[in-house]
């Protein structure tokens, strides 16, 4: 199903006036200049890629389009008219639709209600006619491959399913421009495929798409044109033959940094067993899992979204209770009844959802980083006053090591870009240094440069004897990073891959082992 990008664009080339023309947009937050005067034009039917390192200003630009925040200066022309987008409602009226990086939905409402949110609804005698609406939505839901019933509550859905709900919403609205901020971050390969098909479809029917992603393969494949942001400025524009991977990487990282693949497998010999997992189950998601995790090893868990990997991590970490099975930590029976017990026993977890599960957005970088390491910075356990110097020096060291882009350690973490927030969560466990560290999607939303750094960091931690378990839905990520990879399918380990058998295709194949 290859798609001829040039063709689709040519059809719409006739319309010379761009749908959207942003000129010299400037935006600063306090002392931080998020955008330094960027310009960007989009034609109808165009799929426009937007790339850039974490904190480059991509989401800020989108928030201005969406009416979530207002530019300090600059002009926005839509269909040849100078506009200031006042509110999200206004943005929708102008024909723009958004699927934001941080997913927005109403947990207690049904799928159908979420899709229709903010849209005019068919009514009878003033009452909403849900039957008629369902009939309208159903085909759209099928088109995006949403398999849950329309009457299911949104809170019972997985992240991927929520994404599909958001995409449905954009389709139902019949937008002229759809902006997607890192849409594939939580989709499986097949779901991503379906999304690409939809994007191509939209493009053919004249809808413009602004596509933000750190995954350059997708960008190369989908986009007619690409703009690269760096430090709040649009530094390069690519189209046609100029649109190549090396050129994009160069533009994103600014040439001074070329991502090196992590130097993995320094230590081929597996260390002693850190964690033993036998028959661990919690229905319906986890149906009986066995594996050993060794010191000094990076063990990957691959598979499709929904395979139950996050749930497995939650069981090991004591968030949920197991129905059956046993675990051993360094040979001792291990049955944590809460995360705090798990942490005390020497575990750490970087959760999947950093905003809701890992961070206190209004609190400072230092506060967030030190949260699991408080015993390490008190003057004395009986009178647990915090040693503020130690707190500062420790935090600053980690911020430096991880190259977290932040004005200071007292900056609220919510003001950092997504990738930098992720680094803060990982930094937390650098301070605590647990024996076993579980990372659930550690590089989701992280730029190519930082991704390399995080990978190197993970390898370093393993080299120092930590046992590391990495969950990732990106088949590309695990082979580079891990010594071994377990592929999980429908709540069970379907395959173990290592050595020469450990590659992208093998992971994908194993992921679909039972599913098809």
């Amino acid at each position, binding site marked *: 199903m290859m798609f001829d990008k040039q063709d689709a664009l040519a059809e719409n080339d006739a319309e010379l006036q761009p749908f959207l023309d942003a000129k010299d947009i400037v935006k600063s937050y306090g002392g931080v200049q998020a955008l330094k005067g960027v310009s960007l034009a989009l034609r109808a039917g165009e799929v426009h890629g937007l790339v850039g390192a974490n904190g480059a200003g991509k989401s800020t630009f989108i928030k201005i389009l969406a009416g979530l925040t207002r530019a300090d200066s600059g002009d926005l022309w839509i269909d040849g008219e100078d506009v200031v987008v006042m509110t999200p409602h206004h943005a929708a009226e102008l024909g723009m639709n958004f699927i934001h990086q941080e997913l927005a939905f109403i947990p207690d409402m049904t799928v159908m209600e979420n899709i229709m949110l903010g849209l005019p609804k068919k009514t009878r005698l003033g009452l*909403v006619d849900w039957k008629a609406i369902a009939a309208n939505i159903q085909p759209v839901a099928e088109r995006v491959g949403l398999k849950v019933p329309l009457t299911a509550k949104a809170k019972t859905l997985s992240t991927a399913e929520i994404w599909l709900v958001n995409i449905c919403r954009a389709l139902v609205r019949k937008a002229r421009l759809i902006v997607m901020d890192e849409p594939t971050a939580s989709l499986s390969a097949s779901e991503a495929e379906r999304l690409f098909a939809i994007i191509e479809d939209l493009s053919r029917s004249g809808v413009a798409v602004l596509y933000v992603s750190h995954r350059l393969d997708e960008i190369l494949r989908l986009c007619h044109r690409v703009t690269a942001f760096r430090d709040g400025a649009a530094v390069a524009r690519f189209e046609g033959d100029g649109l190549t991977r090396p050129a994009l990487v160069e533009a994103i990282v600014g040439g001074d940094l070329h991502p090196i693949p992590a130097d993995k497998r320094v230590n081929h010999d597996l260390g002693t067993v850190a964690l033993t997992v036998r028959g661990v189950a919690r229905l319906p998601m986890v149906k009986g899992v066995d594996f050993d995790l060794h010191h000094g090893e990076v063990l990957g868990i691959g598979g499709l979204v929904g395979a139950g990997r996050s749930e497995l991590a939650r069981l090991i970490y004591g968030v949920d209770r197991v129905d059956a099975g046993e675990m051993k930590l360094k040979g001792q029976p291990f049955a944590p009844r809460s995360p705090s017990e798990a942490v005390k026993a020497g575990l750490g977890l970087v959760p999947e959802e950093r905003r809701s599960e890992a961070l206190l957005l209004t609190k400072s970088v230092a506060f967030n980083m030190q949260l699991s390491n408080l015993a390490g910075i008190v003057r004395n356990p009986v009178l647990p006053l915090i040693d503020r110097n130690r707190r500062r020096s420790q935090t600053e060291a980690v911020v430096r090591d991880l190259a977290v882009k932040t004005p200071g350690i007292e900056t609220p973490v919510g003001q950092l870009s997504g990738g930098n927030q992720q680094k803060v969560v990982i930094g937390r466990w650098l301070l605590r240094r647990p024996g076993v560290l579980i990372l659930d999607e550690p590089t989701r939303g992280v730029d190519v440069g930082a991704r390399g750094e995080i990978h190197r960091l993970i390898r370093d931690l393993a080299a120092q004897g930590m046992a590391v378990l990495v969950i990732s839905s990106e088949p590309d990520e695990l082979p580079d990073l891990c010594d071994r990879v377990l592929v999980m399918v429908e709540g069970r380990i379907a395959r173990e891959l290592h050595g020469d058998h450990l590659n992208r295709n093998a992971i994908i194949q194993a992921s679909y082992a039972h599913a098809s």
Partner: protein
Amino acid sequence: MSEMTAGNRRLSARSKARLGFFARYATIIGLVAMIVLFSVLSPKAFPTVLNFTNVLNQASLTMIIAAGLTMAVIVGELDLSIGFAASLHGILVTGLIVSNELPIPVAIVIVIGAGALVGLLNGLVVTKLKVNSVIATLGVGTILTGLAFAYSAGVPIVRGVPDAFLDISLGRWVFGIPNNILIMASVVAFLWLLVERTSIGQEIQAVGGNPAAARLAGISVDRIKILGFIISGMCAALTGILLASRLGSGTASAADSYLLTAFAAVFLGSATLRDGEFHIVGTIIGALIIAFGFNGLNIFGAPTFSQYVLQGAILIIAVGLSSLGRSIAES
């Protein structure tokens, strides 16, 4: 405690489902159980049509003000002004009828309009001045108390209240059902339809469920919040009017004590049927539990101190059973 949960961890799926069902209906089951218990304890006086009608009649005012409050909490805000507002409106309506000699329907319409205005003020302070709703509505409530004093100098308006006004809450104009009950039922039915079946209701639920997401979906969050406060204010006004009609006078601070009762009903209700969500039906169940609890303990003639203790215990147990059942079922 933790052992108990540990012991339960191998609960079969079936018993979990049963527990889940129980949890959903625990407050309702509690209400029924309470009614049965009091019927056994006071077989002559408690389980009579007359007594039940009385309890409902009595609870109607609480239900109206609590249903209004529910609208404010559904949009994610607290409204602490309702008790003070109801007191003021009770004085206002008697004042308009007695001193200004306005026809009763006109006075009522004006006062309900005044209630909407109070709600609008609350809403504007919360959404435009961005004042936390606790402070905003406490502030507005304090101002209203001052106004009530200014209007009546603190002296209840008793003399010259026409019988026609008292008849509003004492009458039984349709099928012999007390008017209060009919008025309450209409208000509740209207609000239920509004929230559950209309498109504004969808926006109201969305704003309460996740204001950021609602805003992103193009819903005007401020307008919906203001609407919630306005409805809450109008219900408070209606309660004040009916209370004045029932007491036969407009009295400063007569309705102040509705605040806590309404809160108890609303929060009790949030444990009913849905998990921690506020909704109109839940609020009504909550108000019934409180009303029948008070009535049953009264009729049984429990000593005063134990009435307090038992009322407190009823609140906690009704919600506790439901929450605990739910959390075990989901564990």
